[in-house]
């Protein structure tokens, strides 16, 4: 196992602020280990940990236009996977396959399998609503609801009935805001509108909103694209901390960011997955010349 940053199987040991119950929620229903040796064998350098998400032969069509071509990706649990690639290559599209947000786009059609803990998310049996409670998403542009800061974070716990009472809900909100390192800035103004925060604060607010329901996977679509370096550093720290508990997928246009925060990287180009591997491998010794060119900034 080779990672650029810390080893995900050996968390730094800093105490978690999230209530225990959250972890319990999912630990119950979700078997931790779904080792698929065959799939992992395909990538010699894949981590030997758990595999959280496996995509097989994903094709996505927007009307007649095909956006993804036979994409296969393995995403390990409790680690950060980065998706890189030139604009329009289908990174966001692929992200939306994992939590079935493509369902909400009229005319979009997805074929292939996305296995979450071995279960196909496109299966008839799977309700996209419950799926999305397990797979949280942070969008490229922060989109806080026009509600108070508190209500923004309380949104998920409320609709999924995660809090037993008011005190419980307050506890969840506080814990989530603390984990998103926003608590100190907003603890005195929880009743003010979330839309009144700065861009970076809004981005952390929507991250807090996403982690409040303790999802198993968090998808982040260019979460730092609108942020200054300081806010970016804080979000990166946050991601690094969150990976001890969640499976995180991040789309980024910054090679440096991918190198800093991720353990695995996948490179997309023109709707195809070109190369996947450990971040260190990808950045030091890419197999495909296109990856090499992209990483060194020769195109894209």
């Amino acid at each position: 196992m080779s990672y650029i940053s810390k080893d995900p199987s050996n968390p730094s040991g800093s105490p978690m602020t999230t209530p225990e119950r959250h972890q319990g929620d999912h630990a119950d229903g979700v078997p931790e280990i779904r080792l698929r040796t065959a799939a992992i064998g395909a990538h010699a350098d894949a981590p030997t940990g758990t595999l959280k998400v496996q995509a097989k032969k994903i094709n996505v069509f927007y009307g007649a236009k095909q956006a993804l071509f036979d994409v296969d990706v393995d995403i390990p649990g409790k680690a950060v996977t980065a998706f890189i690639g030139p604009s329009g290559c289908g990174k966001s599209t692929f992200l939306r396959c994992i939590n079935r947000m493509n369902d909400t786009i009229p005319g979009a059609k997805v074929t292939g399998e996305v296995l979450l803990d071995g279960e196909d998310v496109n299966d008839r049996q799977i309700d996209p609503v419950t799926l999305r409670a397990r797979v949280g998403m942070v969008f490229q542009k922060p989109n806080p609801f026009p509600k108070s800061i508190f209500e923004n974070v309380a949104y998920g716990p409320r609709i999924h009935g995660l809090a037993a009472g008011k005190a419980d809900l307050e506890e969840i909100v506080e814990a989530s805001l603390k984990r998103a390192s926003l608590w100190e800035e907003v603890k005195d103004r929880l009743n003010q509108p979330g839309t009144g925060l700065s861009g970076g604060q809004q981005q952390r607010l929507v991250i807090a909103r996403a982690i409040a329901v303790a999802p198993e996977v968090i998808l982040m679509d260019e979460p730092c694209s609108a942020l200054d370096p300081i806010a970016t550093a804080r979000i990166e720290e946050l991601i690094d901390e969150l990976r001890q508990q969640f499976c995180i997928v991040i789309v980024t246009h910054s090679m440096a960011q991918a190198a800093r925060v991720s353990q695995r990287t996948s490179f997309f180009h023109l709707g195809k997955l070109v190369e996947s591997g450990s971040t260190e491998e990808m950045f030091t010794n890419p197999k495909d010349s296109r990856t090499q060119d992209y990483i060194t900034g020769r195109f894209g």
Partner: protein
Amino acid sequence: MLILMVLLALAALSAGAYAMGRRKARQATAGAAGRPHSLPGYHGAYVALWTGLPAAILLFAFVAFGGRIEYALISADPPPASAGITAERMATYYGDVQSVANGQSTSAVVYEGAAKTAFDAAVAHARSTDTLARLLAAAAALVLAIGGFLLAFPKLSKDFRARNRVEGLTSAVLIVCSVVAVMTTLGIVMSLLYESLRFFQAVSPLSFLFGTDWDPQIAMRTDQVMTHGAFGAIPLFAGTFLIMIIAMAVAAPVGLYSAIYLAEYAGRTTRAVVKPALEILAGVPTVVYGFFAALTVGPLFRSGFNALGAQLVGGPLNDLGLYLGQVQNQMALVAGAVMGIMLIPFVSSLSDDIINAVPQALRDGSYAMGATKSETIKRVILPAALPGVVAALLLAMSRAIGETMIVTLAAGLQAKLTANPLDTVTTVTVQIVTLLTGDTEFDNPKTLAAFGLGLTLFAITLVLNIIALRIVQKYREQYD
């Protein structure tokens, strides 16, 4: 006819001036070094405007005010005393002269003897004045056109700032148009205010606004009754609001829910059919709704209630049965319900726009949290759209209050202070219509009352609209 021909000539002259101006500008810039300040088209437009505009303004002024000037000229020359036209009849006399001179075959009053001679002379005089005035106006217009051209044309040169001049003139024209719109509205409000003041001199505003007795017919006969409060407008406003509330009870839920359905649930094909259908409904003239209410819904409701009453008579609800048995066609419920139907497309298309304006990112955010469609609508979209929806409802209310045709046809004339939807009520607008229809003289409180009612109605709808627009503005700011 002459004026029309001159207008055509002006158009032709302007077109010629445009071509000449453009050509001159082209020639001026052809040999010279550097870029000209303005494109040749602006030079042409500048000359054309100077040629056509002042003359056209003169002609329009002549058409608008020429009649008055002629009238003044004719009346400066009074008929001889022998004609026997008394001072009171003078205005009619001159009016007759002018209309006969303008081509009407006979005068309203038959003049004989000395009066006839004087009248004919006056007509001939008026005709010659008119012809002369028209010729003068036409000549003045042509002179203005040529003068304008001669003034503007020599100014053209490579560095002449024709574009700025033309744009200045264009914006002046736009300003004049908006001023006309504003002034007209202001004029209407002023006349409303003026006539209302006259009304309030006869009837105290307090007894008008807070009186509970409305009976303008009696007031016309004797003066004292007026002071006893026969002009109390409370029952009218109560009736107006009762009908408005019934209408909103129909239009608000149906309109809002259909908007939600259209914006969030309906597929593309459904939307493509239902939206235009609703818009067609919005285009149905209110008079059609009016006779629909009066001829179809009214009798239907009455027979329904009467039949229900017949069932109840003799039972434990005997009194209610007796009451239902004698319900009339003109109940507030009928007018309100039909008005509500009229307002449905209004409410739904406004709300639909507002719901669609809620950013898609908010929906995505909510769906990505694992919210269902209805949770997303209830907890994110509607709260976000609420101010706009409230504004839409306020606008619908002010339409309901001002609506006239449906209530004229379907509501009653009896001013009753009641909250019973099965009772006959009348509304402010219905009363204005009845006060002003037929032969009316604008010197008694009965007709002037219409202005008092109009002013009050205007104030109410104005306030509603201002509140609604304020809310919409706030709402827009939220997403800009």
